[in-house]
């Protein structure tokens, strides 16, 4: 059974790295949501269904919704280094 | 509680002055003058009790193992009386001098607070209380030094703070160190450190730290740098604070330190007195020479102050009873002599806008009474009998001779000659005919003239009455005797 655990943790790390190593914000956030769902599985594996429920609803759900909203606000400007007002102008297109 | 009066009354006066604000000048003058007269009366009555052997002590517990207290012993009262009485005289002068100035509420308020702090320094019963008042004095003087708000004043204020707070820090370490090894050590004639007499190196270090602390205000070279610059302050400030309260707080601290904390015996046996004496002697000679070359009258007086302060330090550091008594007497004598001169300088500047010695020709004819007063004080300073300066210098020199310190006698004699050298040119310059015509009316604002005459008269009186009970000389001898085991001259 350890194989499954190792795979799961490996997935978690991989998604986490992917989420951080991703310049397109929208993708980052989607990966974070997926990360939350995998976390919920991990909680079940660790015998904590209560935490799993909360993680799925809050960690993936509410956090995800908040993040997507914020990304929407920033108009998906994933350029990591916008250089000032001009960039902001673009963002409003 | 009566012991707190000399501290509390000026403090209260200062507070009221600040709260009255800028516009209510009449009320301000009344409160200040009444305060000065009232506290002078109390001080005089305290002196009478102290002569009769009654001293009052009062303490407030403040920190664990630390009380804050004052005691009305004869030595402290001498300084307190000088500060309080001259405060009254200076007030009259300042009211005239500051007639059209701005920020008078601030000026008179902090002025009163300075007096309060100086009285605290005088009456503090132990090193910690003394340190506290000493720092308060530094702080309350600062607004007076920068009073004009000009860039020079601000620069002088910065310099003053740099020295004063640096000295305060040294003093703090010394005082705290002493408290940590010896506990509470109220000043006791002859020394208060019997319990820790063995710890010589620590005691030497503490002595050095405290001398560094007091030395700043006592303008002991090389810690004198702030004093000439601080003369940008208005004349009453220079007069009272830099001739009486502030600088005397420094030398008074040294007197307490040597005579009543360490005691002459311990100070001698630790070998800390002689270096102090040498430093003072060097200061006397160097600053006298510098004074010779100053054209600005106030600066010349400032360097003269530095020299005269070191007279007191040297007398104290010699650890002989006569010299110590002379030092204490000189504290009072120099106060009246130097305040006369600063008053004069201020009056001449305010009336004729003359600041430099070289601009003075004609001044004597224009302001005869003022310049006569100046002359009296100048001769007194040079040690011409029978004026005040002679009495204390005689004691100082005699003490040095008795102690076998011939070099100290030579220093005193040399510097007396130098004093003539830097004072006489002022007089001769003023006597020369110049552009100032004799005045038709009063020679200056009477509120400035009569205080000058009054302090000049005091200079004469102190000299003439030197042997009588109640005169500074007699007082000093009485106050210093217990430190030398009940010695009588």
């Amino acid at each position, binding site marked *: 059974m350890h194989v499954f655990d190792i795979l799961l943790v490996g997935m978690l790390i991989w998604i986490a790295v992917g989420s951080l190593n991703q310049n397109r914000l929208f993708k980052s956030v989607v990966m974070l949501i997926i990360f939350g769902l995998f976390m919920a599985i991990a909680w079940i594996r660790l015998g904590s269904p209560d935490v799993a429920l909360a993680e799925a609803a809050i960690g993936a759900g509410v956090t995800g919704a908040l993040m997507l909203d914020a990304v929407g606000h920033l108009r998906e400007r994933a350029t990591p280094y916008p250089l000032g007002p001009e960039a902001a102008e673009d963002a409003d297109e | 509680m009566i012991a707190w009066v000399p501290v509390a009354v000026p403090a209260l006066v200062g507070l009221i002055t*600040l709260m009255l604000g800028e516009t209510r000048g009449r009320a301000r003058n009344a409160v200040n003058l009444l305060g000065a007269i009232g506290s002078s009366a109390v001080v005089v009555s305290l002196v009478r009790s102290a002569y009769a052997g009654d001293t009052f002590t009062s303490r407030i*517990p*403040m*920190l*664990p193992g*630390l009380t804050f207290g004052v005691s009305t012993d004869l030595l402290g009262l001498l300084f307190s009386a000088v500060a309080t009485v001259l405060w009254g005289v200076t007030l009259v002068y300042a009211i005239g001098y500051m007639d059209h100035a*701005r*920020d008078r509420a*601030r000026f008179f308020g902090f002025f009163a607070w300075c007096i309060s702090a100086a009285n605290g320094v005088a009456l503090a019963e132990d090193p910690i209380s003394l*340190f*506290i008042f000493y*720092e*308060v004095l*530094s*702080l309350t003087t*600062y*607004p007076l030094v*920068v009073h*004009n*708000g*000009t860039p020079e004043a*601000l620069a002088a*204020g*910065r310099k003053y*703070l740099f020295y004063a*707070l*640096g000295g*305060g*820090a040294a003093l*703090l*370490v010394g005082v*705290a*160190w002493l*408290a*940590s090894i010896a506990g509470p050590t109220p000043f006791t004639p002859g020394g208060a450190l019997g319990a820790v007499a063995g710890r010589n190196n620590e005691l030497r270090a503490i002595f050095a730290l405290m001398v560094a602390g007091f030395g700043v205000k006592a303008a002991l070279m090389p810690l004198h740098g702030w004093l000439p610059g601080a003369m940008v302050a208005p004349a009453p400030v220079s007069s009272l604070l830099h001739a009486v309260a502030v600088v005397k707080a420094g030398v008074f601290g040294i007197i307490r330190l040597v005579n009543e904390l360490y005691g002459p015996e311990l100070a001698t046996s630790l070998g800390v007195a002689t270096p102090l004496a040498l430093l003072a002697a060097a200061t006397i000679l160097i600053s006298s020479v510098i004074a010779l070359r100053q054209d600005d009258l106030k600066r010349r007086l400032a360097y003269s102050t530095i020299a005269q302060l070191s007279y007191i330090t040297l007398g104290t550091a010699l650890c002989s009873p006569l010299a110590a008594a002379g030092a204490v007497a000189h504290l009072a004598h120099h106060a009246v002599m130097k305040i006369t001169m600063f008053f004069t300088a201020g009056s001449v500047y305010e009336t004729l806008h003359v600041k430099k010695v070289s601009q003075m020709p004609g001044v004597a004819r224009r302001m005869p009474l003022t310049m006569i007063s100046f002359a009296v004080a100048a001769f007194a300073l040079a040690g011409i009998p029978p004026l005040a300066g002679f009495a204390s210098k005689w004691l100082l020199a005699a003490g040095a001779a008795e102690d076998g310190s011939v070099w100290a006698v030579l220093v005193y004699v040399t510097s007396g000659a130098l004093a003539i050298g830097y004072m006489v040119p002022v007089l001769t310059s003023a006597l020369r005919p110049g552009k100032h015509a004799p005045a038709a009316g009063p020679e200056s604002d009477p509120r400035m003239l009569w205080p000058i005459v009054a302090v000049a008269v005091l200079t004469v009186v102190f000299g003439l009455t030197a042997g009588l009970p109640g005169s500074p000389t007699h007082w000093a001898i009485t106050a210093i005797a217990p430190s030398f085991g009940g010695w009588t001259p």
Partner: protein
Amino acid sequence: MLLDHLPALLVAVPLTGAALSFVAGHRRAPHVALVTAAAIVALAVALVARVLDAGPFRYAVGGWTAPLGIDLVADGASALFIVLTAIVGMGVTLYATAYFRTDDETAYGHGLFWTLWLFMWTSLNALFLTGDVFNVYVCLELVGISAVTLVTLSGGAEALRAGARYLYASMLGAMTYLLGVALLYASVGQLDMTILADTLTPDVTAATGLALMIAALVLKTALVPAHFWLPAAHGSAPSPVSAALSSLVVKGSYFVILRLMLYVIPVGYLGGTDVALGVLGSVAIVWGSVQALFQTRIKQLVAYSTVAQVGYLFLVFPLARLGADAFALAVTGVLVHAVSHGLAKAGLFLASGSLMSRFGHDRIDDMRGAARSAPVLTLTVALAGITMMGLPPSGGFGAKWLLVSSALAGGAWWWAAVLVAGGLLAAAYMFRLLAVLLADGDAVLGTPASAPRTEWVPLALAAAAVVLVAAVPLITDLASASNILIRAGVTP
């Protein structure tokens, strides 16, 4: 009977006030806040009286004592910090009634200052009372969220930037603290500080956990080099907020460090951490003061002075290891310092705020002549300055004296040298400011209608910091009623 519930009420009352002020709307919220503040002051005074009277006591929330439940602990130290918070809080509340008065409903976070501020007050009280290391985490988050939001209240770019930086520091601190708790709990299996203190045995996991917790708290207390977020946050917040942040919020996380280092953790358990904290504190004193000296904007100067003054708080840790005498003196001294700095800094920030609104700008060099037209504010700056320099007679002097005595009693003169040098550096930057205010100049200052009333608040706070020197015996009594000194078995 009510007195038994003081710890609970000190949390519940401001929390209720926070909720009600939100419901009340922005017009009536100030009244709610004033009533709440008055109630807290009364409760805080009662707590001090009770602790002095009956010594420290514990309050089992939910009727479950530790280890099952969470115990609130009221001792001399927590009572002292709570009463400090009450006094400063009252001042800030009074000052804020005028500061945030505006017809623009959307200004200052839509009038939500009052709710945020009462939440912050709640969380500070909770932090000073809690005896549970996980509950500390929740309290710290409450403090952090309310503090960050209050910083951004003006909505300006600079404030938002500062708030964001503060928030990230907060997040890093929160996660690190929780990680520390996780490791500590895994090793010891306890969360209550007293039980931890009794059961800690040398163990690398527990030590790592505690070290991480302290590191996180150091970040929140803004000890150099973790001070990077503080000057911008404290400098760009609205003035009443700056006052509360500098005088109270840094003390909140510091208080937990104090309890952990001197109460929970046995001597030598974390190796040289105490000396390291002392060294960092010394660096903070020097670095913060030097930075303050070169600031051109008044609130930045005051904020850097907080960086420096926070340094003093950490000198207690090396001093406390120098023997019983030094221990008692150092703890008392640092408590006096915390209170006097709290009062003085609140007064100074509020006075800076008033100066800024009088002048219409925050450039120090253009404030010449303020002494003439704003004497009350200048006096406030002067009084606050005196206590921060540690000059007599002031609370700061009391603190410096006790700490210097502690260093000398322990034979460690170099800490005394740091203290003395710190006082001189404080004098340097404070007199730089004072010199400008006293300089000759004819600044024609606007006088806001509310100025005369609210300008007395900072003066009262600064004056209280000076007069505090007379209250040192009281603080000494509270120190001897603190669990830190009781456990160590020493009395000042």
